[in-house]
């Protein structure tokens, strides 16, 4: 009986070490990834596009699981959050498996929709992984650009309603019926 118990305990230990080892391997893969965003700092005028260059490298000795790179944008100086979906049509990009020492480089186009200073970063993650790899932080300064007369529409946008409104007022004044005052005693 004791011999059986020893065998069961040994089997349990083996199974446990295998499963823990698998988790550890996933975490290790994530730790062995480096994600770099360039440029480290950028300055654009509102309305301009900015191409970020992302480089993902597998520095480990094993191939990664299928990876997804996710971009995020935030404004650390404000309490309100930025909606990154307004800046780019694609927030997550699947890049597949990276072999050991393999590097993948690709561009990510963003278009700021408001002025300010923003922090942009990316993370690499795979399904089932317990950790993720985070990139460096890129600071994007967006210079606000507002025109009072975009595309020259202001004179029309003000003028046409003013002309129609003036005609309406004139018409109301002309068609207003005079008040009939009772004859004074």
């Amino acid at each position: 009986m004791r011999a059986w118990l020893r065998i069961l305990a040994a089997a349990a230990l083996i199974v446990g070490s295998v499963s823990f080892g698998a988790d550890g391997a996933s975490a290790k893969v994530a730790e062995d990834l480096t994600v770099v965003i360039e440029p480290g700092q950028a300055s654009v005028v509102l309305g301009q596009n900015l191409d970020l260059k992302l480089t993902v490298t597998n520095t480990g000795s094993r191939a990664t699981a299928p990876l997804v790179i996710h971009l995020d944008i935030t404004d650390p100086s404000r309490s309100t959050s930025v909606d990154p979906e307004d800046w780019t049509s694609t927030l997550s990009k699947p890049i597949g498996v990276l072999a050991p020492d393999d590097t993948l480089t690709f561009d990510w186009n963003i278009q700021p929709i408001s002025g300010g200073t923003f922090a942009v970063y990316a993370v690499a993650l795979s399904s089932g992984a317990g950790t993720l790899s985070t990139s460096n932080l890129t600071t994007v300064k967006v210079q606000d650009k507002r025109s009072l007369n975009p595309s020259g529409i202001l004179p029309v946008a003000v003028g046409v309603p003013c002309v129609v409104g003036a005609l309406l007022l004139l018409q109301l004044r002309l068609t207003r019926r005079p008040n009939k005052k009772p004859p004074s005693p």
Partner: protein
Amino acid sequence: MTTRMTMPASRSETVTPTWWVIARQEIAELWLSSKGLGVLFGFTMLLAVLSYLASADAGINLLDARESVGVVVQTAIGLGTLAALVVSADAISGERERGTLEALLVTPVRRGSIVLGKLLAATTMWVASLVVALPFVIVMAHGPGVAADAVAVLGVAGSLVAAALTALGLAVSALAMSNRVSLAVSLTLLLFLAAPGQLPAIQANGPLGIVLVRANPVSAGLQLANNVLVKQQAWADQWPFLISPVGAAVVLSALAVALSSRLELGGSR
């Protein structure tokens, strides 16, 4: 409407068609009262705000310049036809409710001429909307270089859709016994007709979606505007989107005139 029918003194004089007499009087009533200008003022205010916002978005590349022109042209068509629909939906049921239809019906004018005159008068609401929309569209379309296309879309697609909806409003007005019912039914029909334009792209591009969009004069006209101004498609490829607006304009105008035989005092109280 005050009825002042001037009949010719002798046969040698030129006889003014009665529908034209009715149309002139209706046009004068629409534009010399505050009704026409009031609706037009609301139209210009909405178009001004939308044009400014669309231009501001296009200025910072949030919206493609062509897309902003498309949005303004489509809105001008939508609001202009709505204005014309509101005026036409009031044309007969309004008179019936105000008790002035009786005076009109006792004049020696054929009922078809009454309806035709009213139809022409209500159409001037669209013409006025078109005229005030032109400066907005021309200025906005100048940048991307689509001014001629934008004006043509507004003139062709917009006018056909407006003609169809004006006739629809008049037909409803002839049948409805109260002004409130006429307006409610007309606006509901407009919403119903505008609905296919709001279909998600995946459904709009399916076989049923394509049929729905093309068979419906409102969505066909708006789709034509989008095709020419935003997608830069050739005018020669747009004829499938003109069939239903032309057909609806002809059929609904004929229906409105045909329904004139059923003009009666009804709910006049």
